[in-house]
């Protein structure tokens, strides 16, 4: 039997970003799916790739997981080129692909045990199954599972090998609210234990309170990145509008109107025409705005 290759040293792990993509270009025929994408994902953080369908998120993940070969640019996963990754390298990377990737003729728990058997020291599959509620459909054939059940099984398969870096493509798609909440807790707990999590999503619930870093992708390019707060704060709309956000609790509505009037007056003295409304621009509206202006 071939002995598994040694894992990278802890010093090496600490110094190297979990994922480093620079100038990624990928074409499908005449269609450019990735057009110079650059991003970095660090250990102990959740990095969310946001964008509409066809933006280039899955292409980016596919290049990072070694499924696609970039036409240009560099991709480094745990310091290595994923296209030439060894079995030892792949053991450190967990992947949940968007459309399942689950053998339809297998039973749920058999598939999870099979996935665990590919690793030398996997997680306790019974414990993992109980945590994600897979034990409730353990003997069901994969082809008879609901979308949410498949998602949970795919997530368990991505985690069962104790990976250092996890790619989750639309991790909560098709799940009900309670399961989605459990999965988001799980994603945060992964980051707390030092795992790098890279997820793609178009659901703001998957980002707010979960992601440490957001990378907004549209038409194959990164159009914004940073913490969710930074992305919101730095966003200038196409016409130059900037949203200033202020929150005040326990303020009488009449006082709020007066405050608004005084704010407009103060802004006018600086030559700025300030539009004051209640509420604020949230991440979802930023995302919609950013991705629509690129269409």
């Amino acid at each position, binding site marked *: *039997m*071939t*002995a*598994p*290759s*040694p*894992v990278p040293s802890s010093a090496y792990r600490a110094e190297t970003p979990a994922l480093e993509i620079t100038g990624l270009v990928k074409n499908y025929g005449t269609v450019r799916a990735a057009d110079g994408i650059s991003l970095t994902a660090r250990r102990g953080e959740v990095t969310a790739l946001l964008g509409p369908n066809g933006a280039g998120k899955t292409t980016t993940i596919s290049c990072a997981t*070694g*499924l696609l070969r970039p036409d240009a640019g560099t991709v480094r996963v745990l310091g290595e080129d994923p296209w030439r990754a060894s*079995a*030892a390298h*792949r*053991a*450190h*990377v967990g*992947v949940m*692909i*968007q*459309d*399942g*990737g*689950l*053998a*339809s*003729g*297998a039973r749920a728990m*058999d598939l999870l045990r*099979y*996935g665990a*058997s*590919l*690793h*030398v*020291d996997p*997680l306790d599959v019974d*414990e*993992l199954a*109980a*945590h*994600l*509620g897979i034990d*409730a459909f353990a003997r069901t054939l994969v082809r008879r599972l609901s979308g949410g059940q498949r998602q949970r099984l*795919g997530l368990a*398969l991505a*985690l069962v*090998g*104790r*990976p*250092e870096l*996890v790619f989750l493509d639309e991790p909560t798609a098709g799940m009900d609210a309670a*399961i989605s*909440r*459990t999965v988001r*807790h*799980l994603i945060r*707990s*992964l980051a707390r*234990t*030092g*795992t790098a999590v890279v997820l793609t999503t178009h659901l703001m619930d998957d980002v707010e309170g979960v992601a440490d870093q957001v990378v907004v992708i549209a038409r194959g390019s990164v159009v914004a990145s940073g913490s969710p707060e930074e992305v919101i704060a730095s966003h200038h709309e196409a016409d130059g509008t900037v949203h200033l956000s202020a929150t005040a609790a326990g303020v009488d509505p009449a006082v709020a109107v007066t405050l608004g009037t005084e704010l407009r007056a103060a802004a006018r003295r600086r030559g700025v025409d300030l539009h004051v409304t209640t509420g604020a621009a949230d991440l979802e509206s930023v995302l919609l705005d950013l991705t629509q202006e690129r269409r």
Partner: protein
Amino acid sequence: MTAPGTVRPAGRPAEHVTAPAPTLRRVLRHAAFEARIMLSNGEQLMVAIILPVLVLLGLRLLPVGGIAGVAPIDSAVAATAGTALISTSFTSQAIQTGFDRRGGVLRWIATTPLGRDGYLAGKIIATLGLHVLQVLVLGGIALALGWRPAVLGLLAAVPVWLLGTVAFGALGLLVAGTLRTEAVLALSNILFMLFVAVGGIALPPTSYPRILRGLVDLLPSGALGELLRASLAGTAFSWGSVVVLLLWAVGGSFAVSRWFRWTSV
């Protein structure tokens, strides 16, 4: 489902190791996994076991497929062996791999420690395991029907069986890895029927009109049928059939390495 946070699935305390299982273990686990899926699938069992049994019974009991100077049971066993090999190595593999490809299974496998090479190695072992099961079941029925094989003939059939498995396995993967799933399903079943019925498996090429014999001799099924009849039924051995089957095996393997696509997009 337990409450969130009661387990730490990603926890990697010092005593835990993130590493792949040894290569052989991964491949054998995948072979066992594949074999289990194949054996639990009624349609696959139908193609792998039931159809060859029907061919055996049909050729033994009906006055077709006979060869002058050869016991009917011997020619029937040779035809059944060819049918079983093509059903498992070609049709079953094409359909299962085609659906795995459409479902993203091949993409996911490629990201695991098993990888693409391990997947193919496991699949080959699973196929050979299914062949052993076929030999046991079909051989048992043939013995019950009066088959009395010669040891040398059985030994001669082993390399033919292996070469045929490579040739038809490669063709099955080529179909699965280049066409849409619907086309894979249709083509693999149609080709199976053609190979068996008019491709030199159920009937020897000498049964066909003269104009078709040369074509059948060049088919992988024609060459396989001739070699199995030579080893199991004592007909004349043809080096030409060896060359033809070898060319299909080499050409098919090259085509798979060149054109097989792991994704359906």
